[in-house]
């Protein structure tokens, strides 16, 4: 694995899961996972926000970091999972808290948490986040390509990261990237034969980001594929780390 490739996994889950026992239930465990795969760093959503109540009212989340912790131990970038809603119904109370904390990317799960991407509170939040240069990541399998496209086109200044498009959806992913220049696509699940190379040729490597959805989804296979893509090195580097670094405002 000593190929010198810097890799940032933009889509990881940190913390215990409902339906599996994983070593990534702590920051140390997650870093251990990254080390095993030769991955430099990752962006991770906290499992309690993802599986449970994102507002954290249960407050039983130690020793995991706060959703607004930012970078932890230099390797794990915590992604706050937001729930735009009327006061008292979501988290955080308002998007200005995210801006004040310097958040560069949030995750949203409208399907899982039962709210609408185009609700009045959400529409206000997207505008605030776009103005602040904060991106939002959404799971395609939850929101649908149409949902992501509508959001991206409503807010051209908002960067939207389409997670988990799935190996069966190369065409729709390409359509989405063409329709909305402010969308980036995660490639970890685009693992049909030659899929990533095809999408890089069609949409441009600058539109693709590496992410796996580990530990729920396959991280090792996706990482191996990334290292063995039949693409010029500079394109692989862009997908592996460069595009994420630009998104997160860190050194490429």
């Amino acid at each position, binding site marked *: 694995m000593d190929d010198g490739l810097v890799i940032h996994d933009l889509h990881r889950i940190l913390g215990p899961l409902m339906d599996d026992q994983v070593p990534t239930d702590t920051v140390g465990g997650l870093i251990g996972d990254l080390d095993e795969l030769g991955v430099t760093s990752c962006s991770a959503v906290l499992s309690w926000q993802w599986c449970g109540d994102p507002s954290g009212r249960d407050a039983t989340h130690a020793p995991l970091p706060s959703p607004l912790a930012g970078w932890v131990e230099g390797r794990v970038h915590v992604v706050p999972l937001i729930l735009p809603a009327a006061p008292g119904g979501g988290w955080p109370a308002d998007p200005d808290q995210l801006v004040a904390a310097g958040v560069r990317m949030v995750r949203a799960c409208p399907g899982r948490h039962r709210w609408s991407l185009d609700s009045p509170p959400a529409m206000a939040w997207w505008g605030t986040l776009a103005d602040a240069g904060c991106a939002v990541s959404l799971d395609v399998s939850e929101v649908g390509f149409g949902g992501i496209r509508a959001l991206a086109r409503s807010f051209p200044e908002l960067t939207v990261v389409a997670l988990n498009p799935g190996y*069966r959806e190369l065409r729709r992913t390409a359509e989405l990237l063409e329709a909305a220049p402010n969308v980036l696509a995660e490639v970890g699940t685009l*693992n*049909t034969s030659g899929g990533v190379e095809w999408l890089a040729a069609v949409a441009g490597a600058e539109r693709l980001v590496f992410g796996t959805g580990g530990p729920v989804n396959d991280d090792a296979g996706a990482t191996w594929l990334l290292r063995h893509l039949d693409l010029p090195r500079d394109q692989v580097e862009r997908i592996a780390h460069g595009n994420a670094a630009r998104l997160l405002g860190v050194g490429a």
Partner: protein
Amino acid sequence: MRILDAHAHIGSWGDFLIPRPDADWLARILSDLGVEAAGISHMVGVGHDTDTGNRLALEAARAHPGRLYVWLVHSPHHPQSLAQLRDQLDLPGVWGVKLHPDTHQVGLDDPAYAPLFALASERGVPVLAHTQTDSLFSDPTVAATVARRWSMPLLAGHGGLWQYGLLRAARLAAEVDNLWFETGSSRLTRRWLARVVAEAGAEKVLYGSDALFLDPRTAVGRLLAADLSPSDRAAVAGGNLTRILGHRLLPPGGQP
């Protein structure tokens, strides 16, 4: 370490785009990955036309001797093709028979498959069957029932696929002598692979990629990264399939 891919395909599929469905690409990638050989079935055969699919698969194997071998697809909707299959099973480079109960919409334990299983048992021909947990047609328990009833080696393709059913499928492979768990799957992770091996026993698990549906590079990465002992990894990677195939695994340069 010898790596044999127990479960691969060539050909495109209508449900979604596979940018590289061709045998040439597969053969090159396998070579690059250090995978000695793969058993392929053609997607046309998995779908609507087994005769054409099998012909195309055999042609591809002839074009890549020692790298591509053939699982001949049998559909219970075309029983008349069983006679042709009977002859084709003797062709060098043929590993056995591929069944897809879900695309063909016939349960693996349906009497329609009985003539095929009788033939396979009579000749000791391995059968690779798609399995999918909770499928009426191909749940691993159905595969286990079939394996108990017949004597041919039965490879449970994908090990049932869904994560919540993997350990049950692994236990069945451990319990039933002539049933194996094959790993080609979009849902498998390196962690789950190690668990399956621990549950089934390394000698009952077979490496497969489900190429070209899936990119074979991901499956190799998962195999190499899984927390397995060297001997277990070697068994899964190719040792077990070597034993199952016996004389059906030609040395490099063999011709179908």
